[in-house]
């Protein structure tokens, strides 16, 4: 699956939560190839400010319509400019980049924190019709627009919020601990903040369950050329989050 750059027409671009938007664009070539866990590298304007592309996970793919969907949070200059692109407008998209999740599982458990839930959507879709359990964490009820999205995809949904305004108060890791005791899973997939990933990996490893984590880092090239995104691996060598990841087996990057 060769990487490419496409000029994609924006089809839909809506606010789905506080500062969170869903963006769907036409990109048939990418839609044929994209795997869950991969990401695209988006040039948010034609201008040289901001200069660099922005990495965003592929949140959904419709190969029939030839469309890709991203879900992103507006946090800075780039995402603010991206948010201004109107349906009918063009975007410059590079992808698909990185390696996706392993789909070898019968009883998967998905764990996503905050905007880390974005790649979980496409992952869940790809795992259907296997019975999927998901733990989703967020700051509060308002951030749990994800519930609606995962409703039809998952057999069982568990929610944690920092303030307890929806689901269980606390972190996803707390919920995970209980669930791993109560039920059996053959893989745990995780995407979210680094401390969450480390916590998930620790618990899964302790229970001897395979675990994949999707990492994030600041990226310039997105293809393994600039070394801005590397991290230390447990074998003493280094890995490129963009090209060797963003999805890693937990034991590869967390000891």
């Amino acid at each position, binding site marked *: 699956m*060769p*990487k*490419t*750059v496409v000029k994609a027409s924006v089809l839909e671009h809506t606010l789905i939560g506080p500062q969170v938007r869903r963006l769907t664009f036409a990109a048939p070539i990418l839609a044929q190839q994209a795997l869950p866990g991969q990401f695209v590298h988006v*040039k948010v304007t034609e201008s*040289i*400010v*901001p*200069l*660099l*592309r922005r990495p965003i996970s592929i949140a959904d793919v419709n190969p029939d319509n030839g469309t890709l969907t991203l879900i992103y949070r507006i946090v800075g*200059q780039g995402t603010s400019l991206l948010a201004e692109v109107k349906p009918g407008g063009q975007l410059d998209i*590079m992808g698909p980049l990185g390696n996706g999740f392993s789909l070898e599982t019968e009883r998967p458990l998905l764990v996503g924190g905050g905007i880390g839930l974005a790649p979980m959507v496409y992952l869940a879709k790809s795992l259907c019709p296997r019975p999927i359990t998901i733990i989703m964490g967020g700051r509060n009820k308002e951030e749990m627009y994800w519930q609606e999205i995962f409703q039809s995809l998952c057999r069982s949904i568990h929610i944690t919020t920092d303030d307890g305004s929806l689901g269980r108060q606390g972190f996803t890791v707390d919920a995970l601990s209980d669930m791993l005791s109560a039920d059996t899973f053959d893989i745990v997939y995780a995407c979210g903040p680094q401390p969450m990933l480390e916590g998930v990996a620790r618990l899964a490893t302790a229970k001897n369950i395979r675990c994949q984590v999707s990492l994030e880092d*600041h*990226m*310039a*090239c*997105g*293809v*393994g*050329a*600039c*070394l*801005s*995104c*590397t991290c*230390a691996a447990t074998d003493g060598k*280094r890995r490129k989050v963009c*090209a060797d990841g963003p999805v890693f087996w937990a034991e590869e990057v967390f000891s």
Partner: protein
Amino acid sequence: MLAVTIAGISMKTPVMTASGTFGFGPEYSDFVDLNTIGAIVVKGTTLAPRAGNSGCRIAETPAGMLNSIGLENPGSDEFLKATLPKLKKYDVPIIVNISGNTVEEYGKLAAKLSVNGVAGFELNISCPNVKEGGIAFGTVPQSAAAVVREVKKNTHLPVIAKLSPNVTDIVAMARAVEEAGADAISLINTLLGMAIDTKSWRPVLGNVVGGLSGPAVKPVALRMVWQVANAVNVPVIGMGGIMTALDAVEFLLAGASAVAVGTANFVNPYAAAEVAEGLCEYLKERGLSHVQKLVGQVNHNIG
């Protein structure tokens, strides 16, 4: 109409890729036919492997970026064993950008890497991201010259000295490395810069300071290329913020015999190829037979 020979290295076009911005080449092979590139200057290589700097390594700046990779690289053994064999299937000159902590290390590295498949060396005497010495070589003419002499003693391959822009007198640096035997001079490496996060009150880069590259630095790069090209006889390879063929034309007019595309690759993975194509068109539109007709042709008589 684009073929050039720089420091004895034959290139199909004068458009090279800048060290550290194009990996070893294959990273971009989905986008660019590597066989059409003038030369690939691979990531800065050191004798032993290096892990690079910790913390955040890049920061965006107005029309530019800061990086503080810190010369992460698998080391010279791994380069010879794993990387070079893969590059041999391409028909493109591979120039190895080398860095050492001491003058002797540069010599050792050059001797070790003077093997089939390596077309020449670019001496990174200017990396701002290494503590032990890198930068010092690049700001003192005598030290830069010493590095060049040592490398020349240890290799028969062409030697390109890459200069740092963080100096008062770039011409003095260029003259020193030319006298020491450099076969070509490339410039500029990155300008030392900094960015601070106004939320956390911490430097954005883990290494506090980093190297500025991209369009923002182009005027400085162009000025230095012009100054150096007017002062030395060896060919100059110009780089710093080249995004388009017209940017490359500016560098050629200023006196560069070849150019390198760096940061632009990150923004537009086709950049190296597009700059070469655009150069071709530029020449055709003007009825010029060869890119050489541009080199140093800026008319700078103050009117």
